């Protein structure tokens, strides 16, 4: 069982209460028949309440779940999904950004390159990782490793989990925008399968900087947005307190993005969210990755590149008077 932090989510309070009751009852031994019945009853209630809560999460609640302290991070999946991980550091230009990890890994029998945002768990780790906000050297590290992967024919798996690229003086001095732009430019040219999965927060350009893939998937309770709800509220409503409103307006939950055709797949989370059952989550992620990889490996490399281009080429909603269609590809071919 995952460690529970004290600062749980307030909408989880009823679930929390039942869970505590259950733990206490389970501690009693020897158990009487009446205790057994009570345990069964609480388990039933727990499943009901959890499923009720989690099937009706508001967009803002999704954000809270996506940011949950106990939500599995890239480092957890590196343990739980992959058989081996050989970390490769550094962008060979400036430094090693801890907010992005990269390295060789084994997925079942397949050798792959894994790139992922890392937020850190302890305070010390979080500070070292800038809370998952990468600097330009992080994006350049990711790019160097991805290019190497393509050179040796290794598929690439990107795990996206960032509030956004780091906003700071050093980041600007070292070309944050140039780094992100270059990553999208180069990722579109790589001759190898790329699978991107948003595992928590998909924060704007910081996410897209490792987000140009043949398949883009999201965990059920993650979000992927052009701007953080707080940022959006600050600009449009002039105050961060309207973040909840902004979260609803931005329509960034996995369900919306699937409808919009922006993400290809939603990976269902265990009942009560990934933070409740990290192992179960890892199994589902692993099976998705294996299955998708098997599909993509069938395709010749130049076709992978073209399909990736067409996938992103289609994105956008506008009206065209001449043809009356809003399919961007209709006019291009």
């Amino acid at each position, binding site marked *: 069982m995952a460690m529970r932090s004290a600062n749980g989510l307030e909408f989880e309070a009823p679930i929390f209460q039942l869970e505590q009751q259950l733990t206490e009852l389970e501690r009693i031994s020897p158990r009487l028949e009446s205790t057994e019945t009570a345990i069964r009853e609480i388990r039933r209630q727990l499943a009901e309440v959890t499923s009720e809560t989690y099937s009706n999460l508001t967009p803002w609640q999704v954000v809270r779940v996506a940011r949950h302290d106990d939500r599995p991070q890239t480092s957890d999946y590196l343990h739980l999904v992959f058989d081996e991980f050989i970390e490769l550091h550094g962008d060979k230009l400036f430094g090693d950004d801890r907010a992005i990890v990269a390295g060789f890994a084994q997925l079942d029998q397949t050798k792959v390159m894994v790139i992922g945002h890392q937020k850190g768990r302890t305070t010390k780790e979080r500070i070292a990782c800038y809370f998952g906000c990468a600097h330009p050297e992080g994006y350049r590290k990711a790019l160097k490793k991805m290019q190497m992967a393509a050179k040796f024919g290794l598929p690439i798996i990107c795990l996206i989990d960032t509030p956004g690229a780091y906003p700071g003086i050093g980041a600007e001095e070292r070309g944050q925008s140039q780094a992100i732009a270059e990553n999208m430019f180069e990722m579109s040219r790589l001759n190898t399968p790329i699978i991107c999965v948003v595992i928590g927060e998909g924060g704007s350009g910081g996410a897209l900087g490792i987000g140009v893939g043949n398949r883009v998937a999201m965990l059920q309770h993650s979000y992927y947005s052009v701007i953080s709800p707080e940022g959006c509220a600050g600009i449009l409503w002039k105050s961060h307190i309207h973040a909840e409103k902004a979260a609803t307006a931005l329509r960034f939950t996995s369900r919306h993005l699937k409808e919009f055709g922006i993400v290809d797949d939603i990976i269902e989370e265990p009942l009560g969210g990934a933070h409740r059952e990290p192992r179960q989550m890892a199994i589902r992620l692993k099976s998705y990755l294996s299955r998708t990889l098997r599909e993509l490996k069938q395709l010749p490399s130049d076709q992978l590149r073209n399909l990736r281009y067409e996938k992103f080429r289609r*994105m956008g909603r*506008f009206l065209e008077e001449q043809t009356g269609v809003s399919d961007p590809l209709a006019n291009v071919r």
Partner: protein
Amino acid sequence: MQRRSPNCRPKLRKLSNEGVVSTRRFMKKPKRGVPEGLWLRCPGCEAALFRNDVDKRMGTCPECDYHFYLSAARRVEHLLDEGTFEEWDADLMPQDPLQFCDKKPYIERLEEEQQRTGMRDAAITGSGMIRARRVAFGVTDSAFIMGSMGSVVGERLTRLAERATEQELPLIIVSGSGGGARMHEGIFSLMQMAKVSQAIARHHDARGLYISVLTNPTMGGVAASFASLGDIVLAEPKALIGFAGPRTIKATIRIELPAGFQTSEFLLEHGFIDRIVSRDKLKSEIARLIDYCGKLA
């Protein structure tokens, strides 16, 4: 349903059909950055300037060469040979895929902006001549919802890059955007960054030339996509260019930002732009650069 503002189309039509662009037509409406009136004060040197003098110098201060805001239409007039501009994809209209509503519905905001600026969205694209060299030319206007990139801007620039590749034309994009990606269109806006960037990558693979010109301001998702991807990146003097806005950075790190932070000069010093070019020399510089990078036979 997207309703079309009645005012926006004829103006752009004039632009492409007549070939001659009247400055006056675009200066009638109040523009952000250039207040109405006979006189205006230069933010650079505080001098009181006669508006006509500034207009004649394409929006630069006669005293200190401060670069004022210039609308997309005037950029076309400024950089392309007279009567050569042929607009592409002028009929693309923005939509409201999220039914977005902050203080007012996005659809109303769009109409207001269209009325105010005479544009359909924040970008104009097409082909024209720069000193008799045919180019694919795009410009974003920072007055239309902060010059932010929504689906229409992304699509027009993508098609521009694709046609530049097809027709083997040099690609010139003048960026002005204080907003980056347009949050009113949510995730669709974000994806335009990838869409345009990959089209530029294809242009690159076909050995096409891309010159990116950065103007005040070029921020966020625009800076972090097409604006930074030029083979050659030029910038007008003292433009604000960067990824995160100064206010966001200040709020995050809680220290004062150094003087001159995120200006063209700052970027030049840190190695991210090739040249700072004053507006009066921009056209001739671009022409010369094209000649160096013309395709080998």
